[in-house]
Each structure stands twice: as structure tokens, then as C-alpha cells.
């Protein structure tokens, strides 16, 4: 039964290659993902729970089984993923006007299918299969504009970085299977107590690395800003509900295992580092899409923080709210790209883009991102910071301020001047954008409703109110600096900028190539040396042929010489 959620996307994947025309293809995939949404919502509401399991193959006593299960977290994720996908797909006909639509809809259907499969699978093997499929499809989608040099580089970079994480997860899976002889995730989580602490720490670190690479956290974050070469609809999906969130979801899924070790300390340290690095980079970014990428990196850092401090469900709620406001802001940026043809916020300023219908949705998205009440981000912040200790709270106040600063910097620069252009939205834009705006406005209150499904502790204590106040100050400062005074703020270029850290990573890659050339030269010598054996043999055969030239006199000479040599040898032995 649970597979019903997956089937529509699978059908869409199979149907897409047989149809032509933008409208038809969009209709197929939209109705598929909407169907998935309805089915998963229905299952969630009736509290459906079951597990479907098959044995894929067996080797000796090992059974390699695949299973899908309707856990609460999984069902919530399925509803969320299929909802955001539907929104993005409805927006797609507006954005994808020309090229390669069939390829686009095929790959995006595969993308959504894999993500839905991943959140529902309860066998680690099946989870890994979908996890890997997500990596590959996002590689294909990032390289969608295949004629552009930059998108091909970005695609390669993204897959290379995430492969490190993939292999890390593969190792974790091999370790766990060898120890417990099962792939079942619930079974693994319930047998933690039988495993030694050092083994658990090792597995946690491997899972953590996998999540870091997939969620573009430090030290892997560099692939995400470059992945902006993808179509903006893909970016919206990738950031809000699929690729990037799959890493965070892995952390949530294995939170019990990770929290049973001492690894959370490491997670907290790396998350704070990631958050500060991404804020510093976001503060000076001119490209609106790259800026959103840094914001996503920061938000995923929040989820990692939440998991490692113990508010796992709070992290899940933040994941949902982030998905909603990030999808909204990226779709709005997508509109700007189509209407004004640029992603550069200073160019947008020169053109002048502000009117009520462009500005208000983006304002709401930015308010949500900055966690100012009563928008959805505020509620999510109150849930995931629930278990913070004093140090974390102090750091988080600073983070709130800086987040508001960079978010409003973007808003006040890009939307500074009014537009003279008449802008009207079509039906494909209106539905997703206004739905998401309504959710950003009212979705926060779902925190009170969702308690019936999973328990999310939250509190509106002085700390969270201080955070909100500080965010407001950040917003006001941004207003003064960028709207009133028109400051050009270059921010901190620093160690982690595009031209230092990125270059360091690519020089690591290049050094591998240099090393490979070295090895190859050695190999050529090696092959050459053996090759001379071949030549030697050929030459020897020519020499041998000369010996047998049919001249009897020559034979007799050789015979005599041989006889003398033999005699000499005999003489040496006897004497």
C-alpha cells in the first residue's frame, strides 16, 4: 500500500518520453506529484502505518531486504516533499519555455521519485539506493544547460563532493550490516546498546560526513553556490525539499544513534563554523541565487545544530518551514530572472523592480527567514532552539542579527527602486506563489496542530524573543545602511571566499591529476621496458632465422665451434 505514494512519479517518468509539448508534459508530472501529495496526506490523516518488505536477494545466510514503511516522520516528509514538488512543477511551465523540456520533466520526476522513496524506506540498503539516485539526478539537473561551461563544471563538482559522502554512507552501511546482519533501520536503532561505543562513534562520524557532503556543510559547501547554474525551478526543489534536505533528514533519522555517542560536540562545532562562514559569504554576495545558496547552507546548519542538541523534531519542523520560505524566495528570484534577465542584485537595483506584487511576497519570505514573528520562521526557531545551552544561545543571538542583516541587505538593494514596467502573473505563477505566501503567513500556527502527530517541544521564552528583537534590529540596520544610505558593503572576503577555499579544494583535485600523470609516466616506462621484451623476441627470431640459411658449410662451422665450446666446458668441470 505504501508504495502507492511512489507509483505516480514512476508512471510520470515512464510516460514523459512518449509525449511532446510543454503543456502535456507539465500536466503529466503535475498531476503525478499532486496525486502523490493527496495519497500521502490521506495516509497521514488516517494514521496509516504498515511496512512492506521484500527480500531482494540472498547470499548464504545474508538476506538483502528492501522495505518501505509509513513511519510518522517519513509520512510527514512525504507530504512535505510531494507538496513542494507540486508547487515547483506548477511553476515550471512559466520558467522552462524552450529547451529540452522532455529531459527536464523526466529528470525532475526521477528526482522527486527518489526523494519520496528515500524518506519512506526503512531498509538502509533501499535508503542508500535512493540516496545515490538523488546524487546522480541532481548531477544531471545541475548540468542541464549542457552547452554552458560553468554548468558542466558545477555538475562535476557537485557529484564529486557528494560522492565522498555517498561512499561514507556506504561504509557506514557495510559496518552496520556486518555487525548486526540486518539492514532494517528500526532494528539497527533498537540494537544500539549491543554495540561498543567506539564502533558507534565510527558509524556516527561516517553518517555525519555523508550528511555534511549532501547538505553542503563545511568543508563541502563549495558545490552548492556553483550549483546555481541549474534552472531556477530545479534550484528551488534542490534547496527546499530534495537533495540538500536529504542530508539533514539522514541526521534526523539516525539522531538516536548519533546522540548515543560523543559526536554531537563535533557536530555542534562544525555547524557553528558552517553558519558563520555562510553568513560572511552571504553578506557580500551580489548574485541573488548564490546568496540564497549561502542562506540554505546556514539553515541546514541550524538543523544539524538542532539534531545534535537533542531537539530532533524541532529540526524537522525547521526543515519544513525552511522548505516553504526557500521555495518561495527561489521561485520569486526565478520570476525576476525571466522578467529582468539578471541575477545580480545591483543590476536589479539599477533596473528598478519594486511594485506591490513583486515586493510583498519577497518581503514575507525574508521576514520568515529572519524569524520575525508571526511568520513561519519564528515558530520554527522557537522549536529547534529548545535545548540550547547558554553558550549556544549567546552565539545564536549573534547569528540571528547577522541573518537578518544579510537577508534584508538583499531585499533593500534589489528592491530599492520602483519599476515602471507593468507586471502580471499568469496562472502558473499565481498558484504556487500565493499558496506559499499563505503558508508563510499562517503555517507557523501548525506547530500547535502538528503535536498530534509528533511531539515537538517549543517555548516562547525570553531567549527567543531576544532573538526576534535582535533580528528586527538587524533588519533596521540593513534599512539604514542599504536603503537610506546606499552603502556598498563588501563584507569579509576572508579565508572561506570563492577565491581561497574553493581554489584550495580545486588545487587538491589538480594535485591528484598531477600525481596521476606521474604514475602514468612510470607506467609508460614500465610498459616500454616489457615491450622491449617483445621486440627482443622478434629480433631473436630474425637472428635465429639467419642461422638456418641452408648453407652446409656454415652449419659445419657452427658444429665445430659448438664442439670446441662443449669440450672446453667439460675440461673446466673435470679439472
Amino acid at each position, binding site marked *: 500500500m505504501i508504495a502507492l505514494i511512489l507509483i505516480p512519479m514512476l508512471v510520470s517518468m515512464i510516460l514523459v518520453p512518449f509525449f511532446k509539448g510543454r503543456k502535456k508534459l507539465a500536466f503529466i508530472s503535475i498531476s503525478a506529484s499532486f496525486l502523490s501529495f493527496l495519497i500521502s496526506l490521506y495516509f497521514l490523516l488516517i494514521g496509516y502505518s504498515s511496512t512492506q518488505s521484500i527480500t*531482494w*536477494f*540472498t*547470499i*548464504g545466510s*545474508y538476506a538483502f531486504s528492501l522495505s518501505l514503511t509509513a513511519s510518522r516522520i517519513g509520512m510527514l516528509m512525504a507530504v512535505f516533499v510531494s507538496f513542494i514538488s507540486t508547487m515547483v512543477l506548477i511553476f515550471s511551465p512559466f520558467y522552462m519555455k524552450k529547451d529540452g523540456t522532455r529531459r527536464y520533466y523526466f529528470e525532475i520526476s526521477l528526482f522527486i521519485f527518489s526523494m519520496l522513496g528515500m524518506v519512506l524506506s526503512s531498509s538502509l540498503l533501499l535508503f*542508500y*539506493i535512493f540516496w*545515490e*539516485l538523488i546524487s*546522480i539526478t541532481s548531477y*544531471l539537473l545541475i*548540468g542541464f544547460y*549542457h*552547452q554552458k*561551461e560553468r*554548468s*558542466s*563544471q558545477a*555538475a*562535476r563538482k557537485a*557529484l*564529486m563532493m557528494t*560522492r*565522498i559522502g555517498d*561512499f561514507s554512507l*556506504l*561504509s557506514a552501511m*557495510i*559496518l552496520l*550490516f*556486518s555487525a548486526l546482519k540486518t539492514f532494517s533501520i528500526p532494528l539497527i536503532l533498537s540494537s544500539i546498546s549491543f554495540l561498543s561505543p567506539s564502533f558507534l562513534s565510527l558509524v556516527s562520524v561516517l553518517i555525519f560526513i555523508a550528511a555534511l557532503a549532501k547538505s553542503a556543510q563545511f568543508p563541502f559547501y563549495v558545490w552548492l553556490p556553483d550549483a546555481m547554474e541549474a534552472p531556477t525551478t530545479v534550484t528551488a526543489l534542490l534547496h527546499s525539499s530534495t537533495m540538500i534536505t536529504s542530508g539533514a533528514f539522514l541526521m534526523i533519522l539516525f539522531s538516536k544513534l548519533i546522540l548515543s555517542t560523543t559526536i554531537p560536540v563535533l557536530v555542534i562545532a562544525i555547524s557553528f563554523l558552517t553558519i558563520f562562514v555562510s553568513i560572511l559569504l552571504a553578506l557580500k554576495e551580489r548574485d541573488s541565487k548564490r546568496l540564497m545558496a549561502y542562506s540554505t547552507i546556514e539553515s541546514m546548519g541550524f538543523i544539524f545544530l538542532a539534531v545534535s542538541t537533542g531537539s530532533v523534531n524541532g529540526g524537522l519542523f525547521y526543515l519544513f518551514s525552511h522548505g516553504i520560505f526557500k521555495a518561495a524566495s527561489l521561485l520569486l528570484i526565478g520570476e525576476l530572472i525571466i522578467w529582468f534577465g539578471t541575477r545580480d542584485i545591483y543590476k536589479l537595483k539599477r533596473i528598478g523592480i519594486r511594485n506591490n506584487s513583486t515586493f510583498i511576497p519577497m518581503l514575507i519570505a525574508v521576514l520568515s527567514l529572519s524569524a520575525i514573528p508571526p511568520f513561519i520562521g519564528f515558530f520554527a526557531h522557537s522549536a529547534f532552539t529548545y535545548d540550547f545551552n547558554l553558550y549556544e544561545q549567546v552565539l545564536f543571538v549573534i547569528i540571528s542579527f547577522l541573518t537578518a542583516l544579510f537577508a534584508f541587505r538583499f531585499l533593500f538593494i534589489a528592491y530599492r527602486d520602483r519599476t515602471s514596467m507593468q507586471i502580471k502573473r499568469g496562472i502558473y505563477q499565481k498558484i504556487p506563489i500565493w499558496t506559499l505566501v499563505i503558508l508563510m503567513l499562517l503555517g507557523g500556527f501548525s506547530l500547535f496542530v502538528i503535536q498530534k502527530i509528533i511531539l515537538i517541544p517549543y517555548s516562547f521564552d525570553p531567549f527567543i524573543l531576544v532573538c526576534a528583537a535582535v533580528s528586527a534590529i538587524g533588519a533596521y540596520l540593513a534599512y539604514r545602511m542599504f536603503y537610506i544610505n546606499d552603502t556598498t558593503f563588501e563584507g569579509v572576503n576572508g579565508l572561506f571566499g570563492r577565491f581561497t577555499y574553493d581554489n584550495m579544494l580545486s588545487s587538491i*583535485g589538480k594535485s*591528484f*591529476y598531477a*600525481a*596521476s*600523470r606521474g*604514475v*602514468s609516466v612510470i*607506467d609508460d616506462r*614500465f*610498459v616500454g*621496458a*616489457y*615491450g622491449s*621484451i*617483445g*621486440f627482443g*623476441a*622478434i629480433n631473436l627470431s630474425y637472428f635465429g632465422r639467419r642461422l638456418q640459411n641452408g648453407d652446409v658449410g656454415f652449419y659445419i662451422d657452427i658444429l665445430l665451434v659448438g664442439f670446441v665450446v662443449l669440450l672446453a666446458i667439460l675440461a673446466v668441470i673435470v679439472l
Partner: protein
Amino acid sequence: MISLLLLLVIPLIGSAVVLLLRRIEDNLIEYVVETFVFLTVAIFLLSLLTGFSSFAFPILPLIKFNLALSLNGISLPFLLIAVLVPIFALLPAHKEIKDEKSTFYSLFLLIYAMIIGIFISSDILLLFIFLEITLVSMFFLIYLFGEKETRAKASVEFLIFTQLGSLAILAAFALLFSSTGSFALSSISSSHVSFFDSIIILSLMIFAAMIESPVFPLHVWVTDAYDSSPTPIVILLSALVSRLGLYFLLLIGFLSLSSTFTVFQPLMWIGVLSVFYLAFVAMAQSRFKRMAIYSSALYASLAFVGVMSGNSTAIYGSIFLMVSYSFITSAVFLIAGDLKSLNGTDDMTFIRGLLSSSPHLSFFLFVFLLASLGLPGFSNFIGEFVTLLGIYTVSPWFLVTLAALLIVTAFYLNALKRLAFGRSIKGIRDIPRTEIVNLSFLAFIIILLGILPSLLFNIVGLGI
């Protein structure tokens, strides 16, 4: 029940028919060859359903030498590639071989018969004779049909190296005969061989397997031999001949002398070293075919690691990996041939934008390169995963092999970036329809094995 003898005899008759036809009709040859190959395939598929019946005929009763054909536990997966892979070599042969067709095809069918014979014979002397005929015929194929400038050197290197391997195998078989008094596999596996003898036998067999697979540092003949050969011959070499050494090792080492076999476990590290070394060398290649050569050797080394572990899970994985990569490597060499015929070169620095100019070719390029990377849904994922799971139980440190697979990812992605992405070059066409059919069948097989791996695992039984 269909006799195994048919699988051996039909291609042999075909080989003779082709030789006889040379004087009468040159254009008919390809149809005749196709008829005989597909007849063999049909019989194989039919007997998969009805079952195989063994065959035995005494040749030299004095030393109990029989023409004995029967299946052992690991025959079927190898028989599968031996029967199926040469089909895919027919199309490039049709394109690339223009002169001396009858010589080519009669040798081709002879090799076809002999490789099938190797996997079904249950007498090691017979096995050795089949091996020798295969290798010598292969030498003639490379020598006669290789690229003009390099073929003499390449074929002689091939001959010297593989004969060295055969010599080792002959010595090992002679020693086996002297200590068990029989050539029959069944009686060898049940009789006792002294520890000292089995150490020598296994050392010789491992040496031969390292040459034929090939494994560093005995891989040096591969580059010239593969590079000089036309596509159909490379397919036979990389998908079939390279599997023989490990097949013998499994048969004699793991299944017959299993108690001594684990002594050689430390040699797994040579395999790991080989994987790293070949990954680095492959990374530096700028020609697609040479990259494919090294990566096919790399996966053979990975299978070598699995076989040497003596762990049954790893061995299941290695057998799967060998079968799966035989199909993938055939496809990759087919693509290399296409690149060369469409662009005039397979140098990756001169080709770009295939996604725009030849969408079908680039589709298959993505399918097969991503399949070799171990993308789930394709067969290689299962092979790699099960092998790694098996060698992990021997020692956790073997997971470092994953780092080499990361290097493989790097150079495959680089190849894809250079070939498929970018602006296209004017005047490059797409592959013809026949080629699409050929590659689609290969893709179908690796997807089938990737989704239903039990099809293959169920026909493997680790016993004689």
C-alpha cells in the same frame, strides 16, 4: 536435457564452414557466422530451461584423459558471458573488418567455441588445451587485424605474457596430476594434496591469474594488446579472456584446495595496490580507449581482491562483478569505437558537445559510465557492494578501496564533462540505428541484472 557437446560443436562447425566458404562467396560469410552464433545462443537459452546433460568420451585411457564436459558450481555465470558477449562483437566486426573476412571469422568462431569449452570442461588437461587454442588464435587475430604500426609488437607481447601464464598453469596442472593421479576435477577436489604441493600449485595459478586478469605489476601487456586491436577483439579480450585466470583460480584454488587457499590472503593487498595504481594511470589518459583499458583492468583487479579473500560473500560479489563488468566493458569499448569512427579520433581533448551533436551516443555514454560508477539500478552496484561487504569481513582496512573508486568517479566525470558537455563541433553525426540496438541490449542486460540480481546469484553454487 540438451547435451553440452552441442555448445562446443556448433561454433566449431561454423568455423569450418566459414573456412570452406572462402572460395565460393565472400558476402555470405557474415550471415553464416550470425546463424551459428545465434544457434548457439538459442541452444544455450533452451538448455537453461530444460537443463544441461554432461558428456564424456575417453581420449587417452592410459592417463585417464577424457573429453569430459559437465557443469560445476561456478560454470553458469561464466558460460553466460562466454555465450552472450560475442554477439555484441559481431556488429563492430562487420564495420571494422573488411579484408580476410574468412580468416577473421573462422578464428572468431574457434575462440567462441574454445572459451565455451573452457567453462564447461571438467577435465583440467582438456581445459588447458582449450586455453592454449584460445590464446594462440587470439595472437593471430591481433597479429593479422591489429593496427598496422603496433600490431607486431602488441601481439608478440601478448603471446609472451599469456604463454608465461599458460606455462605456470601447465606446471600447476602437472603437479596436480602427479599428486592426485587424475585430471578430473571431481576427483581432484575430493583427494588430498599435501600442503607443500598445494602451496606451489596455488602460487603458479595466482601468477597466471595475475597475468590474465591483469593485476599490477603483470598488467603491462594489456595496454599495447588492447590498444592495437580492433573493437571486436578488444571485447573478446577484456570481457572473456581476462576472466579465465580468475576462473581457474576459483576452480582449483577456492573450490579444490580451499584449506591452503586462505594462506594467500595477504595477496589481496597486491590487488588493492593494483586498483589504486590503475586508477591513477587511467586518470592521466587523454584517449578514451586507453582510459577504458585501464578501468577494465581496474575492475578485474577488484575482482581479484574479492577472489583472493577466500570469503564466500566476496567471491559471490566478485563473480557478479566479473559478469557485470564484462557487459559494461563491451559497451564502453563499443562506444570508444564509435567515438573514433564519428570523430576520427578518440582523444578527449578534441571531442566536445556530444549531448548536442549526437544525443543517442551521449545517452549511452552516460548510462555505461554511470553504471560503472556503481549507480544503483545497474549491475555493477551489486557487484561492488557485495565484494566490499565480503572483503570488509576479512579486514576492515580493505574499505580503503573506496578511495580508489573515488578516483574512478573523478576521471569518469571528467571524461563525461569533456565529451558530452560544451558547444558541439559542426558535422559530427549520431550513431546508426544498428549500433543503438546493440547498445540497448547491453543496457537492458545490466539493468536486468541490477534490478534482479538473484537471477545470477541463484545459478552460482560454490561447489564442484
